[in-house]
């Protein structure tokens, strides 16, 4: 009996060895390179890392980042639910775990309604007056320290819940669109946006922001000298 069992076992081993191993078939996976904003150059990265302190990690109820203006202002059009929006954008460098470059929403135009994002502006609500103000006060100047923030019920542990938005409607609509379209809020929470992955073209930060100006900042510290 013993011999029979051992023979059976030997036969099993032999049969295993004889069966050719099935080689997994590699199916090529189509990789589509994400078209993103260009990476921050090394010299700019060094200056921002040295001059800007990383903000505190986000906590429930408040989310803030620190960015530096690149001075590059431009306008882009997007369509949300079939409606046209014109976004006035400023390319900025965010100081997070590293340094990321993406546009910050300066203002949103929808039809005849314009919504400024700079919290320090309390003038007329039309685009021309607002942009004139920003220019006159040099707010978008290259190197300017800017402080975008989001606060209130909208900022939760699970992410930004735009359906609770208490901000002006245009800002909420654009913000919600950015979250739905690009889903980058988690990276913003973790201060990892653009650190290990490119930031896709089209994304913009639609938060309210304030700025370091000569009125609220020690002389010489309202701007960072960028190369």
């Amino acid at each position, binding site marked *: 009996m013993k011999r029979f069992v051992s023979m059976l076992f030997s036969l099993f081993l032999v049969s295993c060895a004889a069966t050719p191993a099935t080689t997994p078939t590699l199916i090529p996976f189509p990789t589509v390179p994400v078209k993103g904003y260009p990476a921050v150059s090394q010299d700019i990265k060094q200056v921002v890392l040295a001059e800007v*302190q990383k903000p505190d990690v986000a906590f429930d109820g*408040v989310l803030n980042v620190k960015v530096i203006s690149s001075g590059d202002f431009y306008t882009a059009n997007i369509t949300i639910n079939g409606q046209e929006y014109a976004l006035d954008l400023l390319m900025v460098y965010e100081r997070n775990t590293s340094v990321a470059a993406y546009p910050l929403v300066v203002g949103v135009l929808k039809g005849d309604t314009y919504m400024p994002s700079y*919290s320090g502006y309390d003038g007329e609500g039309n685009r021309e007056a607002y942009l004139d103000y920003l220019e006159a006060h040099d707010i978008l100047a290259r190197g300017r320290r800017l402080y975008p923030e989001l*606060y209130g019920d909208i900022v939760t542990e699970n992410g930004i819940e735009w359906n609770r938005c208490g901000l002006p409607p245009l800002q909420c609509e654009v913000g919600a669109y950015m979250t739905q379209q690009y889903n980058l809020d988690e990276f913003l929470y973790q201060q990892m946006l653009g650190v290990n992955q490119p930031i896709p073209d089209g994304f913009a930060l639609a938060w309210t922001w304030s700025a370091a100006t000569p*009125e*609220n900042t020690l002389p010489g510290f309202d701007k960072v000298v960028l190369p």
Partner: protein
Amino acid sequence: MSYREALMKTKLFSFLLDKILSFKLSPIDWQFIRRKLPHIFLLGALVAVGMALYPQALCAAGQCNEPRDQWCGGTATNPKCCAASAGFTVVISCHPADNPAGASYCAEDTTQVPVRCQNNGDCEVTEVLGSPNRLKKGYWYVGSCPSISGRLCEKPFENTNGSRATCCGGSDDSDDGGCVPTFAPPSVGETFTSDPPNPLPWGQEQPPYGSALGVTLSRFLATGGVDVSCNSGARQPITSMTVKISLQPASAAWIENELSKRYYGAHVYGSYPQFSEQPAIDHPSSACQGVQQIGFGTPQAELDCQWFKPLDPGRYDIIVKVCQGDAQCREVTLPTPLTVSLLDTTLVQP
């Protein structure tokens, strides 16, 4: 090993053994010792000085991990050494920001200023390698932001949050005898909101609110005091806030002297200071009462919905008392008084 090598080793061993066994102690040459005595003392003194200066020498080199630097006051379990400092914090900008409840305040932006400690005998900062330089008489002033005014923030204060400027490293663990933090008293924001913005004395109000609206004061802000001993940046949590109002003496005098001439018998009705009260459940201000305290138990707190019945017209001082976790309290009279206007004349079209 070859036979030859083994033989050689054996011969060498027996040679050395012979030498050791044949060694005889020669008599002490006292003359030689006497001659060399100054050298011996000098050498001993040098060794003693070297040992004494060893920690400071390491300190100056920025590498005194062991032994701990006595000057920094650490313990064996919590060594505090004169380490190369990563830099000291300075508040450079104050920008408007909001807490989760939507209350505005001036948020700080900071920068790090590198310093150097090169004294041989201690770890005091000897050189500031960047700007702004906040080193004054051995203390480093971090600065702080003023209270928000409207939606505007002014420049940071430069002479606040001072602490001893040293390169002493190690953790500030008070349990094992390390740096024991002590905290500045809490600070109180200078602003508040008033609903209605121009209140009338209790009972003079007009419809639609009926004849007893009173005044609800909100948005009192407080910040816990910062650690001034260990430069840890830690702040005390706010534990309590109370608000009371007090008719200014000038207003009381005005009622007694001026107003009493116009309205016979006019006098000061209220007794002061007057504390906030709870409005009746059907009062318009009762809805506000549920959300009075925001951020208590944290360093940034806000007190809302303080309801008062101002019985007299005039200017009222608003006195805010704030206490923090270490039982330190501060009582502040806000710079802007509450003005309660007398509804004097009702004009009627003839």
